[in-house]
């Protein structure tokens, strides 16, 4: 019963976001601010984890491919498809659920507890439109960009690791990268990226927006929002794979 109450509250929050802005200029400013916070703010961690994901995938794939019948270029192919299909969208989104999600939940939670949301409401501002919508839109714009970048960096990281540790030469790795490429996989990765971006932004926004209590509850709701987001990302990951592949 409690689940349905919360789910209903979440849907009403999403519905409540769509209202006429009091001053579109201010909303645009807030949207751009969120794009910088989510996009540029998460860039360093995305770059680091992507490079290492690609590198580790290369080393581990090479370790498992012991048969001389399998060509070494297959490593490049496996790294490419792993990064595009699973590692970049899912792992990066899970990391972003921690980085971006906890920030959204704690920011909104703190605004709720310190009555800043009430102050905006009293001014006549629809706080769902002003505070929640720009975050979700910014996530929908920036997270797919980050995931695309992550796929490129992961593959490049894998290629560099292969070359540096003499697993496969770069030209052979490149042959693998080019063989049997399916453009459909990129669309699949982007579908995942948009779905996960929505989860990563809207779930923490819900937990932060409706927090009650004090600083302890802000921390608790931030943690819960990350846990719920991660679970939902994995469930959505399976659902999308089952539906689209």
């Amino acid at each position: 019963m409690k689940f349905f109450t919360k789910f209903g509250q979440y849907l009403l929050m999403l519905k409540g976001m769509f209202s006429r802005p009091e001053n579109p200029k201010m909303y645009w400013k807030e949207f751009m601010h969120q794009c910088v916070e989510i996009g540029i703010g998460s860039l360093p961690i995305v770059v680091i984890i992507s490079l290492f994901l690609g590198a580790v995938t290369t080393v581990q794939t090479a370790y498992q491919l012991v048969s001389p019948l399998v060509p070494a270029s297959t490593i490049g192919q496996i790294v490419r498809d792993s990064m595009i299909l699973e590692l970049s969208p899912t792992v990066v989104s899970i990391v972003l659920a921690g980085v971006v999600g906890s920030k959204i939940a704690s920011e909104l939670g703190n605004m709720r507890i310190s009555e800043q949301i009430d102050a905006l409401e009293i001014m006549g501002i629809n706080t769902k439109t002003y505070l929640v919508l720009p975050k979700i839109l910014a996530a929908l714009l920036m997270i797919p960009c980050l995931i695309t970048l992550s796929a490129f960096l992961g593959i490049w990281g894998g290629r560099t690791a292969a070359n540096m540790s003499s697993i496969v030469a770069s030209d052979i790795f490149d042959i693998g990268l080019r063989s049997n490429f399916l453009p459909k996989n990129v669309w699949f990765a982007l579908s995942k990226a948009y779905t996960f971006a929505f989860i990563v932004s809207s779930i923490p926004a819900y937990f932060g927006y409706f927090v009650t209590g004090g600083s302890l509850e802000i921390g608790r709701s931030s943690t819960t929002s990350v846990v719920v987001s991660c679970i939902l990302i994995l469930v959505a990951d399976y659902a999308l794979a089952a539906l689209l592949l």
Partner: protein
Amino acid sequence: MIEVKNLKKSFGDKTILNDVNLVMETGKSNLIIGSSGSGKTVLLKCIIGLFTPDEGKVVYDGMSMIDASKDEKKELRQQIGMLFQGSALFDSMTVEKNIRFPLDMFTTLTSGEKLKKVNEVLARVNMEGANKKLPSEISGGMKKRVGIARAIVLNPKYLFCDEPNSGLDPQTSLVIDRLIRDITLEYKITTVVVTHDMNSVMEIGDHIFYMYQGRKQWEGSNKEIIRSNDEKLNEFIFASDFLQDAKQMRMMHEEQDKKEPANV
């Protein structure tokens, strides 16, 4: 003028407000007092529309807040200024940006005009030169003053203050109280203050409403409150022995003054 008519509010089984009727007059400081849990903050939140009452109405100069359309409500809210207990300043913005925010959102003034207006209200609350400071860099009393500046920057018709003196020393409390009183008179606005500070009551209480267990128990001016015979109100006002003694001394002096009028 704000009229509260037959207001009722419950949370679950617990009734917080029970048939509350108040009339808050324009140009006066209307104080809602009462001990913790008496329902004064819930009453304030119902009046400003943060809570929807179960029954009853809140009427702002003839316009019912509850029956108003979405657009009317938005318009009405732009005529409301509010000072929160914790000031509710936006942490990431400087003092200037905090005060400028309502101007940016609701007016088409130029940047220069907005800055002029910000400086005007900052001067009004004696905070000149604090434009570039962050809320974390100023004291509690200063935060309250910035909160008042933000509340009055759009020239509101109604000013609400939720426990404006909480966490402040008596001297700073007095400054805030006098500021609220002066602004009420200067801007001719309807001011509603929720407090349990008896100093505020005596300093600015033009009209006082005493809440007890979700009901309005007593109403009157700060001159009348000291002579009230209401048992519950007296229990609240004269909670300490010191205040009991002060009351007795005050009564004694007043009786003495009556017997021996001062030489003019």
